[in-house]
């Protein structure tokens, strides 16, 4: 068995102008595909090759974990965005947000804060527990909330490669633009 790069859920220019086709091309073809190629190389002829991606994320450490988690994280990231996304959630997700944060605006403020101010490479996550209580979680580098007992609902990549082509060092502008792409339907599917 080998690890596979899932297809992008949309064309490379679908997220423009918020995230350019050039960024998606690099981010998906070089970084995301690169992690898959490297994990397959590392796994060749070892027990690692017998594991599923989820098992790699759950059980491995160091290089195999970093590669596996980044494959998983990026797939989750692409799925959490769509063309003409954004706006605000409704229904079950909005209910959970209001219950956990008080309001959508407060959630948005806290998530933005986590994403913009995370120091160094990493990801900002909206996570839940088994009762759909939501919270914000910051992962450094390749860290994934599932390995810390939390269920991921939505994520924003704040490694510099995610925004440098379009926004240079202005991460705040990138995060502001990312809100226009959020796929709330996908996020709601991640609730219990």
């Amino acid at each position, binding site marked *: 068995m080998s690890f596979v790069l899932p297809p992008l859920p949309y064309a490379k220019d679908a997220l423009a102008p918020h995230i350019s086709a050039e960024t998606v091309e690099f981010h998906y073809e070089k970084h995301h595909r*690169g992690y898959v190629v490297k994990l397959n190389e590392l796994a060749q002829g070892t027990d690692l090759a017998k594991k599923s991606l989820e098992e790699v994320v759950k059980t491995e450490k160091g290089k195999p974990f*970093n590669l596996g988690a980044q494959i998983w994280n990026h797939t989750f990231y692409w799925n959490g965005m769509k063309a003409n996304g954004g706006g605000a959630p409704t229904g079950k997700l909005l209910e959970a947000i209001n219950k956990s944060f008080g309001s959508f605006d407060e959630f948005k403020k806290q998530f933005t804060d986590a994403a913009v101010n995370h120091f*160094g490479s990493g990801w900002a996550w909206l996570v839940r527990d088994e009762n759909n209580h939501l919270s914000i979680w910051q992962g450094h580098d390749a860290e994934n909330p599932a390995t810390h007992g939390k269920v991921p609902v939505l994520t924003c990549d704040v*490694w*510099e*490669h995610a925004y440098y082509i379009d926004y240079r*060092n202005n991460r705040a502008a990138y995060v502001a633009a990312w809100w226009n792409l959020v796929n709330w339907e996908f996020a709601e599917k991640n609730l219990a």
Partner: protein
Amino acid sequence: RMSHIVYKKSELPYAYGALEPYVDEATMKIHADVDRASKLNILLKTLASHDVKFEEKPVDWLLQNLDTVPEEHRVALRNNAGAWYNHDLFWKMMQPASEGNKPHSKVSHALDEAFGSFNDFKQNFHAISTGIYGSGWSWLCVDPKTKQLVIRGTPNQDNPLSDGYTPILGLDVWEHAYFLKYHYQRGDYVNNWFHVVNWGFVEQLYEQATK
């Protein structure tokens, strides 16, 4: 008699495009112009009421004595003092490329002793630089115990001073340091960066560290 230190933006000793083609002008314009002083100054003001006069201590002292900083501000000081100092050193550790740019006598000898040859040193430095996961720096340092040269990587904006090592050369391997020109090819960036190392400044730092 110390006085309150107010950190300013470090001056670039050369034009933004002076390190071309190895480090590109577009990168330098953004990289050198980032404000790393304001957050540090605000943080030091916050710490002003404590017994230790943090706002009067030089930045290298701060990085060597992080354990004296109140815990709730320690990470912020490590990050912000580190960011300011790392970059202040970084601009000085580079210079426009020239033919036959190589280490000066003392450092050259010390590199041969520690690594076997200059090429062996470069290979080691390349391996450590490309091996750092996520954001960080790679450093050539003087080991205080042995006085030998060693290569160490640090995460985020950590500086080797905090681990007791004296840096004499450093390389920023955060993506912002190379992404525009080199994208994900950090290895190419490292190889090219050797062309612009300011070995004269490195020699000075080595002499200070081994006095």
